[in-house]
């Protein structure tokens, strides 16, 4: 038996090998059976600590399937980002199980397409749109965002007839920081020369941790960290030894867009950093504790999410520097969803930074949720990996 066959999965349960959303759904359903009430979220700017502090449970809504796009295109333009089209399709087809069990939805004014799509689904559930400031360096931004988080609190308290004291929010902040700390212990295993974990198992963890508290995650983390340590001691490598290391940055990736991850691993690359809201972004910062103003502490933290809707989005470059230093990638791939203008335009800046400051090869992939461009993507990824061929001559003549 080879190492791979004898390997114990990080999550060894009935969902092993299935899409990570299934395990998350089971977790949320079990919470609901114990009378927990769920709030649907779409985006990394939704302050989940506040939701937890109110005794509610955040549920990440579906946005990553090609299958719901056709229905969405009956209303939405075809040349819109697939994430928005898919989200909308899930709602109008009533096929998102997370939406079905959510009693309200939190939305944010991130990109234009999402803002307008939210208007179209506002009649299906009580919805609260947070006005996200987009010039994060302006002194008013933090003031305004603190107010918006306060308004969200008011909306949730009214909708769910609940309340949270500053002490409750402070406790939720401490819990989130514990989750961030534990998650970073996991990330240490991606920083190893031969990471013992691939994208699928990382996504198992990312998905569950989006909704679960640190307290709920504690046994999971203990188990996962023990297994990762065992893999390290056994010298197990998820891919080939000394495989080219890749940092993947850009738009959120999941479901059908995860074809890019599959192609990277099949081509022989090791994904060592996931620089997206569906990956490491939620765990790049701690929230300040004991400030006496926990709503403002939350606002401070969430304004540091480096989404391309921000201008200038300097945090994305400084986070990139941290990720490059920590995970030592051999190349960077920027994944842009088709018609996501802000990530698409920002890609030029990212590419320049990666190549000029870090001297790393850079590849931009613009894609959607269809599987028809897998051949083209794999050609590009192969060529990128060839160009960072470790120890070998990158090209012959």
């Amino acid at each position, binding site marked *: 038996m080879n190492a791979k066959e004898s390997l114990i999965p990080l999550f060894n349960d009935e969902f092993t090998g299935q899409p990570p959303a299934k395990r998350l759904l089971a977790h949320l359903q079990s919470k609901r059976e114990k009378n927990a009430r769920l709030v649907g979220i779409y985006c990394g700017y939704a302050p989940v600590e506040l939701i937890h502090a109110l005794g509610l449970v955040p549920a990440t809504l579906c946005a990553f399937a090609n299958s719901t796009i056709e229905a969405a295109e009956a209303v939405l333009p075809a040349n819109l980002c697939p994430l928005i089209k898919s989200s909308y399709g899930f709602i109008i087809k009533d096929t998102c199980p997370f939406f079905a069990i959510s009693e309200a939805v939190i939305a944010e004014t991130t990109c234009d397409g999402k803002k307008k799509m939210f208007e179209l689904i506002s009649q299906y559930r009580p919805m609260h749109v947070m006005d996200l400031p987009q010039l994060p360096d302006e002194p008013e931004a933090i003031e305004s965002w603190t107010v918006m988080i306060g308004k969200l609190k008011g909306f949730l308290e009214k909708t769910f007839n609940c309340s949270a004291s500053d002490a409750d929010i402070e406790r939720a902040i401490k819990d989130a920081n514990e989750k961030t700390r534990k998650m970073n212990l996991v990330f240490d295993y991606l920083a190893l020369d031969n990471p013992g974990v691939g994208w699928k198992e990382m996504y198992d963890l990312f998905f569950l941790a989006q909704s679960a508290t640190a307290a709920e995650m504690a046994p999971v983390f203990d188990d996962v960290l023990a297994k990762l340590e065992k893999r390290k001691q056994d010298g197990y490598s998820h891919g080939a030894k000394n495989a080219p290391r890749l940092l993947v940055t850009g738009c959120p990736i999941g479901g059908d867009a995860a074809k890019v991850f599959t192609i990277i691993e099949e081509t022989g690359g090791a994904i060592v950093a996931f620089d997206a809201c569906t990956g490491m972004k939620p765990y790049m910062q701690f929230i300040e504790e004991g400030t006496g103003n926990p709503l403002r502490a939350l606002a401070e933290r969430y304004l540091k999410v480096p989404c391309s809707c921000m201008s200038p989005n300097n945090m994305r470059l400084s986070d990139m520097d941290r990720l490059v230093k920590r995970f030592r990638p051999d190349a960077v791939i920027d994944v842009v969803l088709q018609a996501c203008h802000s990530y698409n335009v920002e890609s030029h800046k990212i590419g320049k930074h990666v190549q000029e400051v870090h001297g790393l090869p850079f590849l931009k992939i613009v894609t959607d949720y269809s599987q028809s*461009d897998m051949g*083209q993507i794999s*050609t590009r990824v*192969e*060529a990128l990996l*060839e160009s960072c061929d470790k120890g070998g001559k990158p*090209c*012959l*003549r």
Partner: protein
Amino acid sequence: MKFAGIDIGSRTIKLAVIDSDGNMIVRKALTSYNPLETIAEISRGIEYDAIAATGYGRHLVKGRLECQVISEIKAFAIGARSINPASALILDIGGQDIKSILLDESGAVLRFEMNDKCAAGTGRFLEVMAVALGYDFAEFSSAALSAARAEEINSMCAVFAESEVISLIARGALRNDVALGIHKAIVSRSIALLKRVSPGTCEVFFAGGVALNECVRSLIAESLGVPVYTPPDPQIVGALGAALFEADRHMQVIPVNHDSMIISN
């Protein structure tokens, strides 16, 4: 020893076999709906010691044939260098892809760009437009070269551009003026791709089936103001590169005869 390279393109399959003295045999066939059968046909009676595959169908043969697989980017880089050791900027326009590749002094790939999944500006685009205008491949280029002026084609989508061509003809536009417009459209797209990898100007090594089109060659040279080098057979650059990659793996340096080269401009 004999080394083979096979380039399984979307429209054409190319096979190049080179021996240690640099003697080369080249075979080509249309890809067809059954590329594996086509590969078997064109390699019939051909002897080689080792083979590498490239092109969009490269993984297709991997399970069937004992061979190395390399990306088109790398294959074209190696092939172009072997034909013209000075080449630094490569343009390949094939049936389905356009790519631009910038090499460093050692021949390593510095940067590359490719078109997205659609056929805009590829050889397929030219084929569809030639049919819409009732030209065969050879006529198409010479008709465009004979045009006094170019009709502007705004759409780069093969489907929309075809409608645009039909409406231009319906408005009484001259057929060869439309042909020139189509050639200019594809050239402007190639130039954008070249500038992305190399903002400065340098000589262009032009490969792929579309490099056989004289009008495209001269328009690129004219717009960039640089010489465009087209190898004697621009279609076999990838296959040659794959064969030489295989030779290199076997520690063989093969002299490639690069005396005869078509240079436009």
